[in-house]
């Protein structure tokens, strides 16, 4: 019998580390291909269509980027909380409530409000709403030590059901003749386009830089990293831990809230209860795959947006369910997370036992 033994590795050189990660992605694609073969699909054809469907024409590139924007901003928000080892999986709810707050402003501030004022107030409202929604689990964690994972997860459903109630009840558009929808925004509440794409892409790029600087160059960012690494050490250094948790979550939730505003204003031009459209959950995956690194988040989110967009395309063009694309997403996640194991441990063969001369 060959016995295998797992031993801890020393720190790996950077180059090798990247090689392992790239290999993991390649393997995941090969593996996904094998699954497709198993279902009688042609993997080469499908991968080609995924690419063609996501970046094949200018229109498709635009659609891909439109999906990358919310994913990227939400991932950045999540990465701030994750850096503190605060498992904020409530982005979905924070996005939804951010959208609701922005909508409230859009519907009530009046059509004569100048566009910049209107958009700024909407953004502020969304950031505050998302931040507050994240503040609730944060304060409970800081003061009572509650588990943030369950807490943030459950708040998602409350937020979504609340907006559903608004959509079917108090905010229903009387002009829609009983159809449960909220009124469309007036022109002054819609984000402008820059180079043919709504301005969200600029916001996303700016935030990539802002979050990077915040984490690596500011005192608060430093504190967040220290708390994430060792709460005891932070305590010894005289940091106010509750304060840090709450600040980080306000930022994290605020960014997710802003996603809600962008989606409501630029995409739906109204509010629907499904406004978050799973971006809040997918962003957890992208933030994690990017190892919470801002620049990497940008890249990973574009790739994932391609998969989402390409998945929609193969469904229509090839009559292949878009779940195939989800399978690819899943295998990438599986392989990349799995590669973490090989980065930290190595597997060797146990030397064979000599026969004891007994």
């Amino acid at each position, binding site marked *: 019998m060959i016995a295998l033994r797992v031993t801890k590795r020393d*720190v790996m050189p950077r180059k090798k580390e990247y090689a392992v990660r790239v290999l993991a992605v390649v393997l995941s694609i090969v593996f996904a291909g094998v699954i497709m073969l198993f279902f009688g699909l042609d993997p080469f054809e499908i991968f080609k269509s995924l690419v063609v469907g996501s970046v094949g024409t200018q229109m498709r590139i635009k659609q891909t980027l439109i999906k990358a924007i919310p994913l990227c901003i939400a991932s950045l928000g999540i990465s701030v909380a994750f850096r503190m080892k605060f498992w904020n999986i409530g982005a979905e709810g924070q996005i939804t409530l951010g959208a609701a707050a922005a909508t409230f402003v859009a519907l009530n501030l009046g059509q004569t409000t100048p566009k910049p004022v209107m958009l700024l107030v909407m953004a502020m409202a969304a950031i505050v709403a998302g931040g507050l929604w994240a503040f609730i689990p944060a304060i409970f964690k800081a003061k009572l030590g509650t588990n943030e994972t369950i807490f943030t997860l459950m708040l998602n459903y409350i937020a979504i059901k609340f907006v559903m109630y608004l959509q079917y009840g108090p905010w229903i558009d009387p002009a829609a003749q009983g159809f449960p929808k909220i009124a469309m925004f007036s022109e002054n509440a819609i984000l402008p386009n820059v180079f043919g794409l709504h301005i969200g892409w600029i916001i996303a790029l700016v935030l990539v830089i802002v979050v990077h600087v915040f984490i690596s160059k500011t*005192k608060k960012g430093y504190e967040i990293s*220290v708390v994430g690494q*060792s709460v005891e050490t932070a305590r010894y250094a*005289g940091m106010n831990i509750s304060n840090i948790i709450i600040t980080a979550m306000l930022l994290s939730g605020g960014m997710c809230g802003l996603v809600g505003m962008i989606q409501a204003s630029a995409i739906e031009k109204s509010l629907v209860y499904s406004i978050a459209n799973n971006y809040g959950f997918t962003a957890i995956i992208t933030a994690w795959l990017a190892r919470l690194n801002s620049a990497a988040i940008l890249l990973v989110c574009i790739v994932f947006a391609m998969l989402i967009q390409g998945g929609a395309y193969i469904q229509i063009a090839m009559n292949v369910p878009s779940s195939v694309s989800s399978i690819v997403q899943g295998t990438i996640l599986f392989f990349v997370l799995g590669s973490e194991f090989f980065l930290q441990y190595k597997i060797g063969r146990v*030397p064979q036992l000599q026969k*004891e001369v007994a």
Partner: protein
Amino acid sequence: MEKTTAIEMMGISKSFGPIQANKDVYLDVSQGEVHAILGENGAGKSTLMNMLSGIYTPDSGMIRLYGEPVRFSSPKDAIRRGIGMIYQHFNLVDVMTATENILIGQPVGFMLRTKSLSHKIRELSDRYGLDIDPDKCVCDMSVGEKQTLEILKVLYRGARILIMDEPTAVLTPQEIKKLFRIIRNMKQQGCAVVIITHKLNEVMEISDRVTVLRKGSSIGTVNTMDVDIPNLIEMMVGKKVDLQITKKSIDADRRQVLLEMDEVTVLDSEGKKALSEVSFELRKYEILGVAGVANSGQKELCESIAGLIRPDKGRIFFEGDNLVGKTPRDIIQLGIRMGFIPEDRLGMGLVGSMDIVSNIILKDYQNQPGLLIQKEECTEKAKKIVRELDIQTPSIYTSVQQLSGGNIQKVLLGREIDSSPKVLITAYAVRGLDIGASYKIYDMLNEQKEKGVGVLFVGEDLDVLMDLCDRILVLCHGEVTGIVDPSGVTKEEIGLLMTGRRKEVEVNAQ
């Protein structure tokens, strides 16, 4: 007396990645012999013993037991062959009795045959002079008793070769005496005992032969009778070292009171008293030692001064201010610095994944103006600390967790000292350090004292405490059982205080 060889390890090598933990090590231990393995931290003592007890397998080399080559693939194999290992951290179930603990993991029938077991335990106890009540619950036992129980456990499993990893680290002098008596009994019964240690006095007292390891290799094996302590140190370190702690006494009139604890009581999470009406004064120009067996309230004492826990009763005065109720931040600003070295070294005080600069900045960044963190100044500071304390690191941008234990400690202590504190609290400052580094740290503390700093030194090694400190405060179960002048007491007397016997008249050191 004719002695048969119990263990032979020949040309043993073992590496973990690029680190060679053991290189071509030779060791032989006879029956009826107490054999000490001596070496500095990181010399490969524990790795070697872990190979003997089946936790690791050697990369090359051969192990022979009573002349037969063996190869263990798990600790079970080693136990089956009569090798028992006793670790520093006991593996006992607190809520069970001694007998039950011995039974755990043993192949027994459905019913516990306690009677025959009790018989066997008694027999073993008598033979080796182990003083254990089989029905006593582990949670009621002292550290010494727990260790005795661990010994009994491995003997019950049939061990004839005992390996003990730093067995005296947690014991009082009295308990150490008792342990040595047990070890001598085992020796007389023909057992082979291997002791891993870095305490030289103990090596001289108990062992028959010593094998010295240095940087993973065996330097040599000598008869204890033929050597003295300086010889052993030279073998360990590879060069002659001057091991003198020079204690300068400063005039009494300059030694004003700096910090005063006034009947401080701290309750732990279960409402038990972790500190009970602790009162003492810490003066300028002095090192006040804190002695006591592990977990006697040392941590609570340090943390309540640093503001990390709030005393339930009592006051702490620093330059006329009551510290109780102040935040840790405020207390740091007042010039009270603490370096607590926990067992894992990184748990408190340092962030393992961050580089040296980011760790140096940990307590200073809040004083910087503005929102951004300025690293330039700290980069200089980090370079200075690395240079002055001779920290072995590829660069100041190396993450702290990649450094060796001693170097990690230097980073921590260097940071605290660099802030020119008024009060310096160090707990277990030399834990896990090699001899040279330890003395470097003692020198640093003495320097601080001569500058007028009041140093609170929580220590483990009584010899060191007596050499280094001007006064020693002894804690037992959270109570101060005495504050003594080390020149006026013996180690045994301090040992008695550590076990709770209060000193009638306190020797007041001035």
